[in-house]
C-alpha cells in the first residue's frame, strides 16, 4: 500500500488509494482533489477492470484471426476481418452443435430438478414437523462441505455399473441432490412471517397449496438466485462429465472443448480453440451480465452472516 503524501499532506484526508474521501471534507473542484480522485479512485478501478477484461477480449479477437495472423512473431491486435472460419473448423472438427445441445439439456434438466428438490426440502425443514428434523438439517449442512471431487470414483463405479456411462442421465443424476439450494432457501423461508401461513392454514389449505400458492410466490428472488447459481455450475461442470463420457455424442461443452484441444495441438489451432472457448464462455457471460445481482448474491451468500 503506497501513501500518497506528496499530493496529500493533510493527515485527516485518506491517503490510501481505495477508501473514499469523506463527503463534505473536500472542496469538490480543487486541483488536489481532482488528482486524488483520479489516482486514488479511478486508476485502481481501471487497472482492475482491464486485468479482468483483456484476456476474454483477446479470446474474442483471436477467434476471428486466420492462422497466418496467429503464427507470427509480429503481434497483431485486431483481426484483419471478422472471419468465421475458426468457428466453422471448430464445429466440423468435433460435433460442437451436439455438445451445445447436450450442455443445454443437462443444465436445464439438472437445474430444474435441483431447484424443485431444494424448494421441497427447504419447505419441509421449515414448515413441516417431523422427527429428527434438526439432525437431517445438520446432515445436509455437512453434505455442503463434502466436495464432489472426492466422490467421483465411487460414483463412477456405481453409474457405470447401472449403464449410465455415455448417457445424459448418467451425467445429471449424481449431482441432483442439492445441499446448497436447500440451505439457501431454508434460510430465506425462515424469515417469512408466520401470519401469512397461519391464515392459509385456517382456510384449510394443505402443505402443498401453502407451498405453491404462498411460499413460492413470495420467494421468487431467492428461488431465482438458487436457479441461476445452479445453472452456472451445471453449465461449467467438468470433472464428472469428463469421467462419465468418452464418446462425443454425449459430451458436454467443457468436455468437448478438451476433445478439440487434443485435435488442435499445433500453434495454428489457437484460433480454432479460441472460437471453441467463446462458445463455452459467452452464454454464461450473457446470463451473468443480465442477472449478475442474483448470481453475485447467491455465490457470496453466508459471507455477511458468517
Amino acid at each position, binding site marked *: 500500500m503506497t501513501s500518497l503524501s506528496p499530493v496529500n499532506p493533510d493527515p485527516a484526508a485518506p491517503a490510501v488509494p481505495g477508501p473514499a*474521501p469523506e463527503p463534505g471534507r473536500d472542496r469538490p473542484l480543487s486541483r488536489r482533489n481532482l488528482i486524488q480522485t483520479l489516482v486514488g479512485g479511478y486508476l485502481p478501478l481501471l487497472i482492475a477492470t482491464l486485468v479482468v477484461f483483456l484476456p476474454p477480449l483477446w479470446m474474442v479477437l483471436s477467434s476471428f484471426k486466420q492462422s497466418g495472423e496467429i503464427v507470427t512473431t509480429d503481434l497483431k491486435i485486431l483481426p484483419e476481418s471478422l472471419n468465421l472460419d475458426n468457428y466453422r473448423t471448430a464445429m466440423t472438427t468435433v460435433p460442437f452443435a451436439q455438445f451445445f445441445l447436450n450442455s443445454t439439456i443437462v443444465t436445464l434438466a439438472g437445474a430444474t430438478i435441483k431447484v424443485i428438490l431444494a424448494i421441497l426440502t427447504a419447505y419441509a425443514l421449515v414448515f413441516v414437523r417431523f422427527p429428527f428434523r434438526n439432525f437431517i438439517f445438520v446432515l445436509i449442512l455437512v453434505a455442503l462441505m463434502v466436495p464432489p471431487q472426492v466422490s467421483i470414483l465411487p460414483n463412477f463405479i456405481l453409474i457405470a455399473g447401472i449403464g449410465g456411462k455415455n448417457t445424459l442421465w448418467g451425467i445429471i443424476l449424481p449431482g441432483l441432490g442439492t445441499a446448497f439450494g436447500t440451505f439457501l432457501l431454508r434460510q430465506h423461508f425462515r424469515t417469512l412471517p408466520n401470519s401469512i401461513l397461519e391464515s392459509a392454514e385456517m382456510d384449510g389449505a394443505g402443505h402443498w397449496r401453502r407451498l405453491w400458492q404462498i411460499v413460492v410466490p413470495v420467494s421468487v428472488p431467492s428461488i431465482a438466485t438458487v436457479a441461476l447459481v445452479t445453472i452456472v455450475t451445471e453449465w461449467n461442470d467438468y470433472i464428472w462429465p469428463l469421467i462419465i463420457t468418452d464418446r462425443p455424442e454425449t459430451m458436454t461443452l467443457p468436455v468437448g472443448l478438451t476433445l478439440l484441444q487434443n485435435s488442435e495441438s499445433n500453434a495454428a489451432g489457437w484460433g480454432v480453440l479460441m472460437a471453441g472457448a467463446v462458445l463455452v464462455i459467452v452464454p454464461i457471460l450473457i446470463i451473468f451480465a443480465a442477472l449478475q445481482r442474483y448470481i453475485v448474491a447467491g455465490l457470496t451468500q453466508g459471507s455477511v452472516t458468517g
Partner: protein
Amino acid sequence: MALPNLVLIAVFTYRPLLSNMYYSTLDWTLGSPTATVVGLDNYVTFFSSNDAPKVLGTTAVFTLVTVGGSMVLGLLVALALNAKVRGTTFARSAVFAPYVLSGVGVGLVWLFIFDPGYGVLAWLLRGLGQQSPQWINDPQLSLVMVILVYVWKNLGYCAVVYLAGLQSLPKEVMEAASLDGANGFRRFMAISLPLLSPTTFFLLITTMLSSLQAFDLIRIMTPLGSGTSTLIYEAYLQAFGAYNRAGYSAAISVVLFAILLVITVLQLRFVERKVHYS
C-alpha cells in the same frame, strides 16, 4: 417431500465417502473384475514413496499461494471498489465475472497467452529482449502458471466479499478515527483490518476449501500433471489417467477428505467462538 433429495445426498455424497475407505484397502485395477484386499498397503505406498512429499508439497504450495494471493489482491481490489467514484458498480460485476466462467474455457485462453511461441506474454518478453520460458514443460513454471490463472479467476470473489465487509463497517468508528488524526493507512491497519477479521476468516476457509478442490484449470492447462499434481489431481490421474489404480486413487481421496474435514471442524469451532473484535 424432503425424501428424494435426502436419498440422492445419501447415495451420491455420503455413500462415496464410505466406498472410498473400502476401495482404499484394495489392490484393484479400475475395470478389472477382481481385487485383492491389501489392508493399509495403499497408504503405506503413498506415504513411503516419493509421491507423498511431492504431491503434498504441491498441494500446500498451490493452496497457500492461491489463498494468500486471491485474498490480498481481493482486499486491494475491494478498497478500490469502495471508492466513492462513478463506475464502481460496473467494475464490481466485471471483476467478479471470471469467477463464474468455465474453468476449461478460461484455462485455454490463458494457455494461449502463455504460449512460448505465439502468446502475448512471449511477445511482451521479446519486447524486453527476453526469451519466453517453457511454461508447460517445466514443472515449477507450470505450477506458477496455474497459480497465476487461478488467482485471476478467483480474486473477484474475495473482492466482492471484502467489499461487503468494508461497507458494513460502523461509520461512527471510522469518522472518530479520522477526527483523531489517524491517516488512511493507519486507520486501515488499526481499525478496518481488525474489524474485517470475521470476513477474513470466512474467506480463508472458503478459499482454502475451493483451492484444495481445484481441478478444471489444472486439468486443461497441464494434462499430464507432474509439477501441478495436487492431491485431487493425483487422485484423478491415478484412477482415470494411464494407470487405472482405483485402490491407490481412493486412498489419496481419503487423505484429501481428511484434510478437508480438519479444516471444516476448525471452522466450526472458530465460528462458535466468534472471531470478533469486540
